[in-house]
Each structure stands twice: as structure tokens, then as C-alpha cells.
């Protein structure tokens, strides 16, 4: 039985995430969070993800990277998919399987144009636009999946568990 936490009226789903990941069998150890798109909730998410990732055996540095990647993913969703609205649903699933940690972030907001999601030129020193680069640096893979039924975007990030 996986851990399940609901901060407010988000949507609890798991099967479609498992399908998206083509998982054979979901691990018994799964963290699933349904939160609102309120920046005030980011601290709690970071704490829960950190505790979970340490529990599955990741080292401190890798754990920090996963937490930062999740934070950046949520920040992007709040700012871009929901235009800063604080009451919209976001689902987060963290699954360790076959030596790899998968993080899935699902929103129901404006569909991200995947062709425009990329790291920007870091030599251009200006505020903003660093989130995708940070996610790519912190994780082994970062992939935006086509919008499923219900709209929004699914972001899948993976990292080897050392």
C-alpha cells in the first residue's frame, strides 16, 4: 500500500501514471501527493519528497537534486500552466522501481507546447527560464508526455538510485 497524501481538493489518480510509465507492477513503495497550486505548499511537498527519497536509499546529494527538480517542476506548473492561480490541482507521484526513481508531475492547466520546452542559453544572464535547465541537471531524464484526457501535461523525470 503506497503512501497517499491529499492537501486539498486535488485528484487522486494512479493507473494512468502507471500506464504512462509502462510499469509492469507498481512498487509497494509509492509516494502520491495531490496538492493545490499554492506556492505556500511547496515547503511541505519538499519535506515529504525528501523523507521518501531518503527512505528509498538515495544519498543526500541525489536527494537534494530530486527535491530541487520537483520544486522546479511545481514552480513551472504554478507559473505557466495555472498562471499563478493558487487553487488548481497538481498530482505528484514518486516511484522507485528497478533501481530507478521516477517522478511524475501531472497538471490540468494550459497544455505545455513541448517544442518550446527547453533549457535556455545560460550566458544570457537574466531572471527566469532556469527551471528546465535545473531539472535536466538534477535528473537523468526529463520528458514531457502528450496531454492526456482532461488536458494538462504530464512530466516524467527519472534518476538512478545509487
Amino acid at each position, binding site marked *: 500500500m503506497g503512501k497517499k497524501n491529499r492537501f486539498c481538493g486535488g485528484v487522486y489518480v494512479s493507473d494512468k501514471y502507471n500506464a504512462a510509465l509502462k510499469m509492469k507492477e507498481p512498487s509497494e513503495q509509492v509516494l502520491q501527493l495531490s496538492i493545490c497550486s499554492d*506556492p*505556500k505548499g*511547496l*515547503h511541505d511537498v*519538499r519535506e515529504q519528497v525528501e523523507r521518501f527519497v531518503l527512505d528509498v536509499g538515495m544519498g543526500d546529494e541525489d536527494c*537534494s537534486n530530486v527535491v*530541487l527538480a520537483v*520544486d*522546479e517542476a511545481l*514552480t513551472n506548473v*504554478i*507559473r505557466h500552466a495555472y498562471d499563478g492561480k493558487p487553487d488548481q490541482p497538481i498530482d505528484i507521484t514518486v516511484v522507485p522501481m528497478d533501481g530507478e526513481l521516477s517522478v511524475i508531475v501531472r497538471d490540468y492547466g494550459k497544455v505545455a507546447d513541448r517544442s518550446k520546452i527547453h533549457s535556455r542559453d*545560460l550566458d544570457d*544572464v*537574466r*531572471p*527566469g527560464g*532556469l*527551471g528546465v*535547465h*535545473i531539472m535536466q*541537471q*538534477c535528473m537523468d531524464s526529463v520528458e514531457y508526455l502528450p496531454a492526456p484526457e482532461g488536458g494538462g501535461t504530464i512530466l516524467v523525470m527519472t534518476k538512478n538510485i545509487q
Partner: protein
Amino acid sequence: MSKAPVTDIRWNDKTAIVDAAGEIDLHQSAVLQQQLLDVLDQKPDRMIINLANVSYMDSSGVASLVKLLSRTRKNGISLALAAPTKKVRAIFEITRLDSVFEIFDTEQEALA
């Protein structure tokens, strides 16, 4: 004493030493940015942001500091970051901004 994320502003002659604290994420970054720009309005010759008590920072916090850097450069004011934790320093390294900001291990080194 101001409310977090800026917890104190100390003056050493014309240098403003700003103590920041807590977790600088999307929730706190706009507040931090405004507090730092308010210090800039007091026209220091130099600003040092002491990050020793900042336990976490994401790209939102970094963006606030980049905005401040842009404003200080336009106004001919020197800006330095001091005493970041390993975790906070890492985000500057990941974004390669460690070569853009002056970052010192200690406040004393920044003041020297």
C-alpha cells in the same frame, strides 16, 4: 529587524550587509526581491547578501538575486553573496551563475 526572508540589515560605512534566512522559493522570492530593492533605494556603495541562514533556494530565489544584480550594475553598486550553504551554492553552480556573482565563503571575506 524586518520580516523574513530578510531578517536584518546592517551597515558598515556605506556597505549594506543584508541577512537573509529561510527557504527562498516561489512563495518567498517576490518578498525577498522587494526587500532587497528597498535596501538598494538607500543607495549603498556596496551590498553584501549574507546567505548563511538560507537553508534552501530554487530558481525563483536565484531570479530575485539576478534582478538585484542587474539593478546594482546599472547603478554602479558592487554586489556580493556571502556564506552560502553547500546546497544553496549548488544551485548557482548548476545555473553557472557562480561565475557571474561574486560569492565568498564568509562575510568577513566579502568585506575585505
